[in-house]
């Protein structure tokens, strides 16, 4: 068994109102020094050992992320 962790985030310049709202809330709570806050998606994929990083990349390009508006990063983690 293998596990991949996939992080999907809005591309630079894509307006992220949820992130902006959370950032403003932290601001209102008095936290300082925050320059940016982005909210994205976390996908955990458990699969057989035969599923390669290339295949997972293809899954992201095809379905799990929309390359027009989103970037993704894939981490292969232990069992």
């Amino acid at each position, binding site marked *: 068994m293998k596990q991949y962790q996939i992080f999907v985030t809005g591309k630079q310049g*894509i*307006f992220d*109102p*949820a992130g902006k*709202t959370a950032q403003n809330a932290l601001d209102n709570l008095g936290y300082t020094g925050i320059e940016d806050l982005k909210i994205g998606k976390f996908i955990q994929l458990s699969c057989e050992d035969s599923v390669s990083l290339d295949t997972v990349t293809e899954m992201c390009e095809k*379905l*799990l992320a*929309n390359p*027009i*508006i989103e970037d993704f990063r894939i981490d292969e983690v232990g069992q």
Partner: protein
Amino acid sequence: MTNMRFGVVVFPGSNCEQDVVHALRYLGHTADYVWHQDTNLAAFDAIVLPGGFSYGDYLRCGAVARFSPVMEAVSAYANEGRPVIGICNGFQILTEAHLLPGALLRNSGLKFICKETPMRVEKSNCKWLDLPEGTVLHIPINHNEGNYFCDPETLKSMEANGQIVLRYCNEDGSRSVDGSAPNGAMDDIAGICNERGNVFGLMPHPERVTDSLGGNNGTDGAAFFTAIAAYVKGA
């Protein structure tokens, strides 16, 4: 009256298909439901992807529906230059399927918006509309992800190719400097078409303002279904 036969695609989670079928029949057209597992669209003069929440809007709106068996047939149909319209969730599906450029993001105000909204007709090559530039239509919008986005180069080429069909505007047809789109859409875009003008996607719901008995004001939505019928039958 120029009658034609529309196929209205039903995905799991579609919820505006009955409104669309009612509106089309009200206008004197034939309209049939097409289940998302069907792949034969030969019998239809035009295809409608209706609004709703296909596959629960999970992952991204339209991302899963775009891989339904029917969508391969819809792509082939569109590539033949035959008419396809995507309304609301249907528009989102068309962008996910790359039949239309760009994407629809969450409304900038983070709120679901349901209200009658003024929008202006732009000069475009869209086969689904035959109204003078600047005509103001009042059509309800009903969505959470209608904030149109594309990269600046795409916007420029769409503008140059006459692909921007509808823009949100003020009551008098003017556009505010800080944007007239209630959802934050780029360049106030409410509806776009492909380069050929046969594939049209829009966030507003024309089917809800086709039959004046529907409870909404006006019949501004009828224009789209009438124009495409005239185009198909006149071609």
